[in-house]
């Protein structure tokens, strides 16, 4: 029985096939409209010596506008998205992306403004950036915020660089960064990218960090502790203040990964917890769409102590004869420098600003409350099905292990693939690494009670199937256009581009 029952979230239906665009190409087909060059213009082409010119372009298709629209429309139907339903990727905060944000980001005054145009011709945008910085500072309890980093990981890098600059300014050559074993991969990668060596800190049996563990690892050569709060197991790091004291007492700084900020919006502020630097993921907490893999935006907040090291330019408000004006300030002599060709992913800032304006203080807090309620509800309902590796009330997400499935031979991967048959995007799997066969579920506040109940029923069904018919799960998904894809073969013999058939 591969077809879900009648009341289910999904069934099967028509799915359209579509080859690669290159395979649809026909010589002479046209998808553009361009003016013809006049004689004078044709002559001007000689300005570039012909040995600098390339031969004709290969491997771009020739298609009509009709072809292109159909091609990508069909491709789009192969994706599942938040607008289809629950997309509970843990740590990714796949909440609803409001439509108004898409509208405002496309206003020509935002979308067509040029990054090099004089500040006087971009007052609206600079004002918006300024206001967003202030909003993020208030929400996080940090003193200053830079909007420049293009994603969370670049924010981490920026933060680590500021930490380095801070220590170097004080003549200290610290070389290590402490990172809990539950951390996201970008944390160690970012530290390493800036030349630090990474010292892992074990989480306690309760899934949170204990002062003793930090104490044991903290030393004079440690530049910072980098931690995520709430952490990737969904827990609030309740020893946060004590831990920060330990780090600070040895001259270190505390970096807070803000990926999970959604859980504490309006409830607690990283700046009040002893965190010195943090990044925001606008594409998580502030609902800018993930776009199938970006663009995101990773602003970084810092305490005053670190403000001199902020990347440039910084948006500044200046009082002038005609009232308030906004300018770009490059005069940060201790700045770590520039991280982006321009000001970062401004389009995401516009969306996040619209989001914060739409929610206000109460709405933001409500996000946190309902996100946490949803995660705890799922934990309560799913604990009969899956094993809970770490007990405790969770914040924005809940994590299960595959222990309860052991006897069946079914893996977390199989459960994930089977969920697809029922019309759900699977949760994050096999992360955090400290949980065996982890299933990391972050429902976000966008999901309704009934929606969660339907999801739970489905997982119940799947766990029954795992007992009764494990092959069904191992062969999943069955209902998709393509069946399970062979990732091993892809990596072993990489085919990374289309090649025109040789004849």
């Amino acid at each position, binding site marked *: 029985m591969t077809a879900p029952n009648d009341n289910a979230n999904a069934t099967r239906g028509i799915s359209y096939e579509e080859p690669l665009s290159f395979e649809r190409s026909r010589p002479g087909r*046209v998808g*553009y409209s361009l003016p013809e*060059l006049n004689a004078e213009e044709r002559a001007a082409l000689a*300005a*570039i010596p012909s040995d600098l010119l*390339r031969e004709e*372009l*290969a*491997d*771009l298709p020739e298609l009509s506008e009709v072809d*292109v629209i159909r091609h*990508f*429309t069909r*491709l789009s*139907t192969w*994706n599942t*998205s938040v*607008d289809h339903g629950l997309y509970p990727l843990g740590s990714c905060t796949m909440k609803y992306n409001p439509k108004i944000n898409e509208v405002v980001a496309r206003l020509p*005054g935002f979308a*067509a403004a*040029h*990054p090099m*145009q004089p500040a006087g*011709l971009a007052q*609206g*945008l600079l004002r918006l950036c300024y206001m967003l910085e202030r909003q993020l500072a208030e929400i996080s309890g940090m003193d200053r915020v830079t909007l420049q980093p293009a994603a969370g990981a670049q924010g981490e890098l920026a933060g680590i*660089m500021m930490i380095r600059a801070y220590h170097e300014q004080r003549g200290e050559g610290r070389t290590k960064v402490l990172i809990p074993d539950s951390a996201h*991969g970008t944390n160690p*990668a970012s530290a*390493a990218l800036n030349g630090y060596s990474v010292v892992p800190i074990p989480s306690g049996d309760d899934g949170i960090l204990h002062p003793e563990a930090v104490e044991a690892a903290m030393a004079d050569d440690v530049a910072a502790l980098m931690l995520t709060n709430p952490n990737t197991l969904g827990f609030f790091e*309740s020893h946060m203040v004590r831990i920060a004291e330990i780090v600070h007492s040895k001259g270190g700084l505390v970096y807070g990964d803000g990926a999970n900020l959604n859980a504490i919006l309006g409830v*607690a502020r990283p700046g009040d917890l002893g965190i010195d630097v943090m990044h925001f993921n606008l594409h998580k907490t502030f609902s800018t*769409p993930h776009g*199938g*893999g*970006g663009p995101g935006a990773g602003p970084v907040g810092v305490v005053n102590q670190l403000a001199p090291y902020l990347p440039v330019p910084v948006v500044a408000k200046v009082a002038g004869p005609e009232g308030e004006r906004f300018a770009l300030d490059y005069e940060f002599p201790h700045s770590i420098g*520039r991280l982006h*060709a321009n000001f970062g*992913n*401004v*389009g*995401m800032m516009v969306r996040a600003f619209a989001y*914060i304006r*739409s*929610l206000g*203080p109460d*709405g933001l*807090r409500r996000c946190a409350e309902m996100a946490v309620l949803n995660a705890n509800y799922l934990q309560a309902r799913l604990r009969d099905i899956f094993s809970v590796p770490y007990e405790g009330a969770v*914040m924005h997400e809940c994590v299960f292990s595959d222990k309860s499935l052991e006897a069946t031979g079914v893996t977390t991967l199989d459960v994930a693939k089977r969920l697809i048959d029922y019309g759900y995007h699977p949760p994050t799997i096999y*992360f955090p690494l400290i949980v065996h066969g982890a299933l990391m579920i972050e429902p976000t506040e966008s999901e*309704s009670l009934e*929606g969660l109940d339907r999801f739970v029923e489905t997982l119940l069904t799947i766990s029954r199937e795992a007992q009764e018919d494990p092959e069904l799960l191992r062969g999943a998904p069955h209902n998709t256009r*393509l*069946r399970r*894809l062979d990732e091993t*073969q*892809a990596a072993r013999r*990489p085919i*990374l*581009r289309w090649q025109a058939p040789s004849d």
Partner: protein
Amino acid sequence: MRYIPHTEADVRTMLDRIGADSVEDLFQSIPEKLQLRRPLDITAAATEQEVLAELRALAEENASSHTHGWFLGGGAYAHFAPSAVDAIVSRSEFYTSYTPYQPEISQGTLQTIFEWQTMISSLTGLDVSNASLYDGASAAAEAVLMALRVTRRKRVVVAETLHPHYREVVRTYLDGLDTEIATLPRSASGQTEVLAEAVDDTTACVVVQQPNFFGCIEDLESAAAAAHARGALLIVVVTEALSLALLRSPGEAGADIVCGEAQSFGVPLGFGGPHLGFLAARDKHVRQIPGRIAGQTVDSAGRRGFVLTLSTREQHIRRERATSNICTNQGLCLLMATVYLSLLGRVGLRRLAELNLARAETLKSALRAQGLALPFSAPTFNEFTVRVPDSGEAALERALGAGMVGGLDLRPFDAELGPAVLVCATEQSPTDRFETLATCLAGGAA
């Protein structure tokens, strides 16, 4: 709140099931004194109608090619994007999905990435491409880091004609690492002077921009020869991706890594972002490439499909030993560019590039006719440097008075050049205003 579906009855039911008395209770793991006991001090929620009105007002305070004649480039280009691009990008199947971790329900995104990789490999003349980086500047920095990994050397040689913002970002990324940066000067022609002695056996890479920041087309073969002679890699940075349709491909000219900014391919200017960093390389270096890569494979029934691959390079597998920390990158901008390139195609893209060149040359004539000098002799694509009589600032102020954003004042970027403006002409630049622009830059009133 219209984005949150919970009714009070729902909340009650859920609390009961959880065994909590109140929503407050759920936050007990946050020590009492760490909890915020006041509302956030931000403006109260606005209705959708109010938010739209507020943002419309802010949007109207900014100039753009909708309000002014546009001649400003310098790393970001005012090209026309066909309406079909946004029509596709606005499909929520694309924009509200995540990185395609679950390939069976993400084939739309994955096939698009595979198509993009094919296109960018072909345009750069190299073998493989990744699935985007944040922007051109960080792509340049990642390329340098990649060269450091590939060569296990520590010295980087960067052309002074590389976009100044890119040079800054490369410097920022290298700061803290045990590396050295040397520079190659600009010659009188406006091109980079490739001094053989600038490259030594410790040099990991030579970094050159094509066309360079001043608009000049570089001699990549010489750069490649100088780099390769000492075992260094040649990195070619492209900020105006449209030039790839016209100029000899950097790969063919000997580049080992080609990276840069593909905003020109249908991505909105958007005050500088989100744009689209790209990076392509040779097959032999594929395992040192940063960022996501999609690859072709088969499903269990043997049918073609696509997955993210070579992930042992990446942070989520390799953590501190990853080739980069990149996670979220610029997926949707990649889609824009892939749709754009599918529409323009091999013939259209070339024709558009020719149109840009022709426009720029026509503009040059108009400027020369006003007695303005072009200080550099090297050929250019759609952007070039022009000397102005007084100062770039004053010249551009005059253009602005005539409703034009006339280019980029080069003084902040190159103190020695004298008063000069970087002027750009694309298919969107108003040809009927070329003469007026010339008059303004030359010192006359419009």
